[in-house]
C-alpha cells in the first residue's frame, strides 16, 4: 500500500511538520536574542516553502493514500492559509514577545495548526475530515489560551474548548449515521452509495439527522449562528494574532470542509443541506450585525462582524450550481473569492487592533479616538480595511460581495439577496463609527506611538492584498473558478 503513496503530493504538509520541529529545536538551542528573529524567520521560511510546494502542484487532480485529495480546491485553500499565517506571524512578533516566554512553542503551534488546515481542506474521507478539523481545534484551544496567566485568554480558551468539544461530538454522531447507512467513510463512495436503491428507501429518515448533526460541527468552525457563541469571546480573549488566525484561516477551513463534504458526499441531499444553509445564512448575517452594532470594544465588534461575514460566505454555498458553459458565478467560486478577500481584510483589521493594543494597552472604541494624529499609518490602514469590509469598490470586499451576490440572484433567491443587502448597509454603519472615532474625534493629550517593524510589513502586505484582490479581480476569479471546478469534478 505504501508504494502507491505519492509523497510529493504531501510535500506541503511535510515541510510544515519539519519546520515546526525545527522551530522547537531552534527555541531549545538558540540564545534568546537570536531566537527573537530566528523563530519567526524559520517559521515564515517554512510557510513560504510550503506555499511554493503547493503552488507547484496547482492543477493536480488525484487522491493521495485514499484519504487526501490533491486538487486545485485544496491547493487554493492551502495557498490562502500559508499567506495568511505568514501575515499572522509578522503581526505577532512584538505582540507575543511582550506577553509570553514560550515563543518557540507559539510559532510551532501556529505551524501545526496550519498543517491541520492543510489536512482538513484536502480531506476526502470522513476520518481525515474529523481528524483535520479536530487537530485544528485542539491546537487552536492551546493558542487561544496561550497567555495562561491572563484571565481573559484562559476564559476564551475554555469557552472555545467546551463549545468545540460538544460540537465535534455532535458532528461525529452525524458521521456515524452516514457511515452506518453507506458502510463507507470515503466521501465519493458515500455519494455513490446514497444513490443506491436500498439506501434511497431510508434516505428521508437519515438525511435530516445526518445533515443537521454534521452541519453542527462545520457551523461551529465557521462560527455560524446559532453555533457562534464561542466566537466573540474567543476572538476577544485570545491573543490578537491568534484572533487573526481564528477569524480567517480557521473559519475558511470550516467552509472548505463544509463545501467538500456536502458537495462530494451528499450532492443527492442538496435540497436538505441547501435549505438548512439558507436559513443559517440569513440568521448568521442578521444576528452578527445586530449585535456588532452595540459593541464598544473594536476587537469584539470585529468579532461579531466576522460572524456576519460568515453569513455572506454561506450565500455562495447556498447558490452552488454546476458552472454552465464556464459561467464564473457558480457560487462555490464566490465562496473562494470571499475567503481570500476576507483573509486579507479581516486579518488586516485585527492586525491594526493588535497594534493599537500594543500602543495603548486596550482596544476599546475610545482607544481609537484621534488615531489619525497619533498613528497616521494605522488609521489609514484601518480605513482601507473597514472600507473593504463594507464592500466599497475597488477593494477586495467589493469583489467578494459581487461574487456571492451574483449567483444568489441568478438562482433567484431574492429574499436572501435583499436580507444580505440590508445587512451590508447596517454593517457599513458600524464600520463608519470606528472611522469617525479615528478621524474626527480629537483627543489632544494622548501620546503618539510607533508601530513595530514586523507589523508594519504585515500591514503593507495586507493593504497590497486588499487592493490587489479588488483590482485584479479577474485573475482571482479565474483561480477560484478553476479550483471550484476542480472540486466539483469538472
Amino acid at each position: 500500500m505504501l508504494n502507491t503513496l505519492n509523497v510529493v503530493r504531501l510535500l506541503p504538509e511535510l515541510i510544515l511538520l519539519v519546520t515546526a520541529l525545527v522551530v522547537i529545536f531552534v527555541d531549545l538551542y538558540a540564545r534568546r536574542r537570536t531566537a527573537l528573529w530566528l523563530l519567526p524567520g524559520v517559521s515564515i521560511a517554512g510557510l513560504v516553502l510550503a506555499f511554493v510546494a503547493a503552488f507547484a502542484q496547482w492543477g493536480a487532480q488525484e487522491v493521495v493514500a485514499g484519504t487526501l485529495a490533491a486538487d486545485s480546491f485544496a491547493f487554493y485553500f492551502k495557498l490562502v492559509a500559508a499567506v495568511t499565517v505568514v501575515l499572522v506571524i509578522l503581526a505577532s512578533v512584538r505582540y507575543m514577545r511582550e506577553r509570553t516566554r514560550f515563543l518557540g512553542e507559539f510559532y510551532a503551534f501556529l505551524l501545526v495548526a496550519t498543517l491541520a488546515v492543510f489536512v482538513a481542506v484536502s480531506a476526502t474521507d470522513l476520518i481525515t475530515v474529523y481528524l483535520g478539523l479536530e487537530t485544528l481545534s485542539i491546537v487552536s484551544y492551546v493558542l487561544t489560551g496561550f497567555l495562561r496567566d491572563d484571565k481573559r485568554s484562559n476564559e476564551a480558551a475554555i469557552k472555545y474548548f467546551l463549545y468545540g468539544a460538544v460540537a465535534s461530538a455532535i458532528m461525529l454522531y452525524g458521521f456515524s449515521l452516514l457511515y452506518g447507512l453507506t458502510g463507507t467513510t470515503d466521501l465519493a463512495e458515500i455519494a455513490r452509495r446514497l444513490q443506491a436503491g436500498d439506501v434511497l428507501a431510508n434516505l428521508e429518515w437519515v438525511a435530516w439527522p445526518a445533515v443537521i448533526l454534521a452541519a453542527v460541527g462545520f457551523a461551529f468552525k465557521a462560527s455560524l449562528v446559532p453555533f457562534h457563541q464561542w466566537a466573540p469571546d474567543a476572538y476577544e480573549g485570545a491573543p490578537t494574532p491568534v484572533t487573526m488566525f481564528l477569524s480567517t484561516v480557521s473559519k475558511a477551513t470550516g467552509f472548505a470542509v463544509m463545501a467538500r463534504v456536502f458537495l462530494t458526499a451528499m450532492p443527492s441531499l442538496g435540497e436538505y443541506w441547501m435549505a438548512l444553509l439558507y436559513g443559517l445564512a440569513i440568521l448568521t448575517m442578521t444576528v452578527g450585525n445586530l449585535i456588532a452594532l452595540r459593541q464598544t470594544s473594536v476587537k469584539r465588534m470585529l468579532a461579531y462582524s466576522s460572524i456576519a461575514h460568515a453569513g455572506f460566505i454561506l450565500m455562495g454555498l447556498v447558490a452552488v450550481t454546476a458552472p454552465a458553459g464556464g459561467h464564473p458565478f457558480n457560487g462555490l467560486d464566490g465562496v473562494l473569492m470571499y475567503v481570500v478577500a476576507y483573509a486579507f481584510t479581516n486579518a488586516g483589521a485585527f492586525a491594526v487592533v493588535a497594534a493599537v493594543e500594543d500602543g495603548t494597552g486596550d482596544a476599546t472604541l475610545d482607544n481609537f479616538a484621534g488615531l489619525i494624529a497619533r498613528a497616521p499609518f494605522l488609521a489609514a490602514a484601518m480605513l482601507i480595511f473597514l472600507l473593504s469590509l463594507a464592500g466599497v469598490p475597488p477593494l477586495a470586499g467589493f469583489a467578494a460581495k459581487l461574487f456571492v451576490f451574483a449567483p444568489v440572484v441568478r438562482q433567484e433567491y431574492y429574499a436572501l439577496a435583499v436580507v444580505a443587502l440590508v445587512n451590508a448597509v447596517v454593517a457599513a454603519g458600524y464600520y463608519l463609527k470606528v472611522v469617525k472615532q479615528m478621524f474626527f474625534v480629537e483627543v489632544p493629550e494622548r501620546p503618539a506611538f510607533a508601530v513595530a517593524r514586523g507589523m508594519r510589513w504585515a500591514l503593507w502586505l495586507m493593504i497590497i492584498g486588499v487592493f490587489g484582490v479588488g483590482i485584479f479581480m479577474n485573475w482571482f476569479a479565474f483561480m477560484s473558478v478553476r479550483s471550484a471546478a476542480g472540486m466539483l469534478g469538472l
Partner: protein
Amino acid sequence: MVPLSWYLAVAAVLFVLGLFGVLSRRNAVAILMGVELMLNAVNINLLAFWRYTQPENVAGLVFAVIVLTVAAAEAAVGLALFIALYRLRESVNVDEIQLLKG
C-alpha cells in the same frame, strides 16, 4: 445474535445523557465528562455498524481508534485549561467566568 437496533438504542441514550450533562452542569470538568459520554456513544455506533454491516472492512474500526486518540488529546488540553483556570480564580464553574461579555 443481538439485533443492531439494540446497540443503536443504547448509543442514542448514552449520547443524549451526555448532552444533558453538557447542558445542565456548571462545573467544567462535569461538562467534559458529558462530552466523553457522547464520544463513547459515537464509538458504540461506529463499532455496531462495523460489526453488522461491514465486518470485513476495517474503516469503522479505524474511525473508532482515531476517535479514541483524539478524545485523549482533547481531554489533556481541556483539563490543562481547567487547571489553569482554577489557579487563576479558584473555581471551575463555567457560569462564574464572564469577563468577556457583550
